[in-house]
């Protein structure tokens, strides 16, 4: 008889009882998104690394407060985002977002002509620049919802606001982007 895979809560319980492997199983699938969330808020790679590490330690120590019916990812990302916001208030220089070089790009099904590729890259750069010009609260909502592809509920968790606020920020952001473009 096949046994069911462990739930997030099963792993949390095992981690709480000192099983290092269970905590690694919980966290490993979310390391990228945790770091990127921290980076999108702090805009500094070194700060994002410190923030993500501190958040993991805080999450480990707070496992006792994890709710049985809750998914782990938004819970972890909320801790990451909270740490990142605290760090960002004190931080100085912010790095701008860049797109990867065309050769590394993961999107695009067929090989475009050189001219077509150049136009597409310019449009993508233009769109990212427009996102960067959004006010902070709208920019973060767009970053979480579209760039990180979080659900609306997860975005609300990460930003520490109600889901309705996420909707209205996204709506204003999209209007602004259309005007800007």
């Amino acid at each position, binding site marked *: 008889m096949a046994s069911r895979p462990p739930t997030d809560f099963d792993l949390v319980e095992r981690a709480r009882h*000192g099983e290092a492997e269970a905590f690694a199983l919980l966290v490993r699938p979310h*390391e990228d998104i945790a770091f*990127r969330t921290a*980076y999108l808020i702090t805009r500094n790679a070194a700060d994002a690394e410190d923030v993500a590490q501190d958040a993991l330690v805080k999450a480990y120590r707070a496992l006792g407060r994890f709710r049985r019916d809750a998914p782990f990812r938004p819970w972890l990302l909320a801790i990451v985002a909270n740490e990142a916001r605290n760090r960002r208030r004190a931080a100085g220089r912010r790095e701008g977002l860049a*797109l*990867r070089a065309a050769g590394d790009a993961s999107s695009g099904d067929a090989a475009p002509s050189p001219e077509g590729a150049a136009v597409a890259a310019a449009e*993508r750069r233009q769109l*990212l620049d427009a*996102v960067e010009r959004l006010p902070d609260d709208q920019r973060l909502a767009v970053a979480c919802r579209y*760039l990180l592809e979080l659900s609306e509920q997860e975005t609300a968790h990460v930003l520490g606001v109600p889901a309705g606020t996420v909707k209205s920020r996204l709506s204003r952001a999209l209007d602004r982007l259309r005007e800007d473009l």
Partner: protein
Amino acid sequence: MNELETRLRTLGPDVDYPETPDLLAAVEDRLAVRPRRRRGLRLAVALAVLAASLGAVLAASPGARSAFLELFHLSGATIARVDALPRAEALPDWAPGIPMPLADAQRRVGFRIRLPHTTGDKQVRNVLLDEQGGGVVSVVWCCKPTLVLTQFAGAAVPYLQKLASPETAIQAVEVDGKPGYWIADGPHVVLFRAQDGSFHDYELRVAGNVLLWVDGDVTLRLEGQLTRDEAIELASAVR
């Protein structure tokens, strides 16, 4: 989803993020098991520490008999029989320390880690190290019944404090010619000493049986759902 939202979503994978560092490896040392503080235990801890200091004098005093019925000493461990155990949760799979590979734990302690030749078909599930004093190593074997072997270099002041209920049997035994105690048939509470020398309430209500013994400069504690003879047989295979 409208066209702008689609364009934003396809932008996501092309954002040039810095490479994600190995976060788990970086925080491994900071992921220690956190002690839980419990008000109800403080008095018992204070009394236990006092009893350990005053030893037989306090145990023999009529005033203390209401709290302490007997005291047993074994190198780095003290067992106090009390008339009422503090309230503590039963956490049968719990052991203190930071999880790490056995080889890493061995490099970080000042004594040779003892292991049994055989634990049947059980696999080592976890090795935990609490780096106070000369280091305290707990090896946990999977699965039910879980076995936990804890060991540390004996200290002048006991590291391990046990509070046993009146119905708990505490019996002097020998493990391959080495002195020990068999603690069974009743719940007892284990307290571990913190780095600052105070007893942390790393409390653990143990429903299983425990064998404590001394091998050279190392005090060992084997916990699990074992009979006395099974425990002594397994302990005799620990080298």
